[in-house]
C-alpha cells in the first residue's frame, strides 16, 4: 500500500528491510548510529540492529571505505554512508582503485558487493567544496554502477536493488531533498538498476535529467505546455549503466532534446547523452542537442552566485525554445 513519505524515510526503509532480510548487510559511516545520521536517514537503526551492524566511524573516509571493501570481499554486504559525496573524494582510492577492480583483478574470484551512498550536488550556499556533483566522476569507471535519484519510491526500490547487487554501486541522493515526499509502496519493492523512467509523455521535445534537477525540469515542462510545447521528461535514475534505449526512442519521437544536468559540462553525463543521441538518432534530429548544466566554474557562496550557477526552469525553457527555433 503506497503512502506518502520523505526521501530520507524511503532510504531508511530500504536499508532496514534489507538488513532484516540479510544478516550480512550492515551500515557504517560518520554519525550513522548514535547521532541517528547527519541527515537522519539512519534514525533508529542502531536500536534495532546494534553497534556491529550500524557502525559509527571516526572521520576517516579512506579508512572506513576500505574496511567496507575488505568486508565485502570477505562475504559481507556493507553500506558505506558518506556524509556527502564531496567527502568521498578522500575515499576514491578505495572506490575506484579497489572496489571497481576487485572482480577484474581477481578474475572473478572475489566480488565486491558494496553500496557507497550519500548526497551529491549543491545544497544551498555551501560554497566551493560542498556543492559538487559526482555522477560523471564515478560513472566514468568500469566496474561501478551509479544511481542518482530523488523520487522516494525510486530511492527505496533502487537502494534495495543496489544492496542486493553483486557489484559495487555508488548511490547518490540529495541533501536538499531528504524531506521531499512521494508515494512509496510498503514492503517489498524493487526498481531495476539501469532503467530510466518517463515522468511525463510529450511529442515536441525530450528533456532528460536526474536527481534534484528533475524538479526544475518538470516545472519547465509545465511552463512549456502553457506555451503549446509538449515536452517528454525522462528521469534517468541510473547513470551507469545508462538506459540509452529509453532516451533514443523518445528522441526519435520528438526529434529534439535538451539535457538538464547539475554536474559540470566537461565530459559529463550530459556530454555522454548528447553523444549517444547523435550516434543513434542523428537522422531524427531537427536541431542540435543542447544542454543546461551547472556553470563551468567553482560555486561561490553568495545567493546570487547559486542562482547564476544552477540550471532552473527559466534556463530550461530558454534552451527548449532554442532547439525548437521558437521565440
Amino acid at each position, binding site marked *: 500500500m503506497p503512502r506518502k513519505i520523505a526521501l530520507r524515510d524511503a532510504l531508511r526503509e530500504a536499508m532496514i528491510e534489507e538488513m532484516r532480510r540479510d544478516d550480512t548487510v550492515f551500515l557504517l559511516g560518520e554519525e550513522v548510529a548514535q547521532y541517528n545520521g547527519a541527515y537522519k536517514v539512519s534514525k533508529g537503526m542502531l536500536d534495532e540492529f546494534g553497534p556491529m551492524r550500524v557502525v559509527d566511524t571516526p572521520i576517516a573516509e579512506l*579508512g572506513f571505505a576500505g574496511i567496507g*571493501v*575488505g568486508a565485502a570481499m570477505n562475504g559481507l554486504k556493507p553500506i558505506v554512508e558518506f556524509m556527502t559525496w564531496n567527502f568521498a573524494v578522500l575515499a576514491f582510492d578505495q572506490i575506484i582503485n579497489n572496489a571497481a577492480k576487485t572482480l577484474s583483478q581477481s578474475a572473478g574470484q*572475489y566480488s565486491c558487493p558494496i553500496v557507497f551512498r550519500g548526497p551529491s550536488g549543491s545544497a544551498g550556499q555551501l560554497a566551493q567544496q560542498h556543492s559538487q556533483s559526482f555522477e560523471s566522476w564515478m560513472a566514468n569507471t568500469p566496474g561501478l554502477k551509479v544511481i542518482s535519484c530523488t523520487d522516494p519510491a525510486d530511492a527505496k526500490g533502487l537502494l534495495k536493488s543496489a544492496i542486493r547487487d553483486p557489484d559495487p554501486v555508488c548511490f547518490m541522493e540529495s541533501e536538499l531533498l531528504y524531506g521531499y515526499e512521494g508515494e512509496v509502496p510498503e514492503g517489498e519493492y524493487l526498481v531495476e538498476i539501469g532503467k530510466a523512467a518517463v515522468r511525463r509523455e510529450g511529442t515536441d521535445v525530450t528533456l532528460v535529467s536526474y536527481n534534484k534537477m528533475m524538479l526544475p525540469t518538470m516545472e519547465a515542462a509545465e511552463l512549456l505546455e502553457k506555451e503549446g510545447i509538449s515536452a517528454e521528461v525522462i528521469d534517468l535514475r541510473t547513470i551507469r549503466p545508462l538506459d540509452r534505449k529509453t532516451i533514443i526512442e523518445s528522441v526519435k519521437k520528438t526529434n529534439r532534446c535538451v539535457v538538464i544536468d547539475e554536474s559540470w559540462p566537461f565530459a559529463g553525463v550530459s556530454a555522454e547523452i548528447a553523444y549517444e543521441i547523435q550516434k543513434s538518432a542523428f537522422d531524427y534530429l531537427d536541431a542540435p542537442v543542447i544542454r543546461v548544466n551547472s556553470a563551468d566554474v567553482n560555486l561561490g557562496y553568495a545567493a546570487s552566485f547559486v542562482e547564476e550557477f544552477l540550471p532552473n526552469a527559466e534556463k530550461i525553457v530558454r534552451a527548449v525554445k532554442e532547439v525548437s527555433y521558437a521565440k
Partner: protein
Amino acid sequence: MNTAQKDTTTAQRSSTTAKKNGSAKELNYSKEQYLEWYTLMLRIRRFEERALMAYGQQDVRGFCHVYIGQEAVAAGIESALTKDDGIVTAYRQHGTAIGRGVETKKAMAELYGKATGIVKGKGGSMHFFSRENNYYGGNGIVGAQIPIGTGIAYAEKYKGTKNLCVVMFGDGAARQGALWESWNMAMTWKIPALYICENNGYAMGTSVERTSNVTDLSKLGASFDMPSESVDGMSPEAVHEAVSRAAEHIRSGKGPYYLEIKTYRYKGHSVSDPARYREKDEVKSYQQRDPVKVTEKAILENGLATAEEIKEIKDSVKAEIAEAVKFAEESPYPDGADLYTDNYSTPYPFLT
C-alpha cells in the same frame, strides 16, 4: 594494557637458533618444520630467479617486483597460521602467494600473461588472488591493502569466527594515511588483524631514514596502544614465533597486533631499478644472513637431512620451476573477448 615495545631482533637470536655465523646450534622445531621452511623459501627463490630471467627474455612484461631476500617472512607466517586466516599484501607478492599455496605453474603462467594464470592473465605480477587459499591479493596501490585487510578481519569478527587477517605492507606504506586511519579503527573496534610491516629499508629508492623523523618502525603502533614487536625477518623461526604470539593475542579477542619485521630485498625495487641508492656492502651483509643458506646449513649441521636429501629437494624444486616455465610457455594467451568478463558479475551493456 600490553603496549610494550619488544625488540625480538636481538632477543630471538639467543632464544632460538640464529647465531652470528649463521649456523644453528639448538633447534626448537622438528625436522619436518625446518625442511618445510627450507623447501618453501627455496621454491620462492628459484621461482623469482627464473621469473627475472623470463623478464630479461621479454616473456614477462609490465611491472615485476621480486621478494628475493624476504622469503623467511612468508615461510614464518605460513607455519604459524592456518589457511582459514586471510592474507592481503601489496605488489611484491609472489612469495606470499606461493607461501599461501598458489601453484608455481599458475603463478608463472600469470607472469607470462597466459589464460592458465592464477587470475587468467588479468592481473600479472602485482595481482595474484586465490580464494581457495584466502589470499586477497596483490594490491598495486601502496597502502591500499591496509584498510582492506582491516575490513577482511572485521568480517571475521562480524561472523564470529576465530580467524584473523594478516595485513602486510612495506616501510613505504607505513607512511600512508590509510595505515593511520585503519589502525585507529582496528584498535577501537578490536578487529582481529595482524599488521606486518616488512621493513626492507627502502620505499622504492627512499631509505626509511629519509621518510620520517621516526625511523624505528616498531614504534608506529604506540599512539594507538597497539601491541608491537620488532622481529628478525631473516629468520623463519623468529618470524614464526612472533606471528604465533601475535595470533594467540588476536584470537583471544584482544584486537590487533603489529610486527615490524626487519628484512631486506637483494634486488632493486622493481626490475627497472639498479638500486644505486645503497652500498653493495649493505646488500652483502644481509646476503651473509641469507635465510635459504642459513636454514640449509642448520639442517645439515644438525643432521636433520643429508647432503643427498638436500640435493633431492633442490632437484625437485628445480624440476618444479622448469615445469612451471614449460606450462607457462605452452599455455594460450587469453582470448581478447575475455577482457569483457569479470568487470561485472552479471551481463553488462558496455558502451561502444
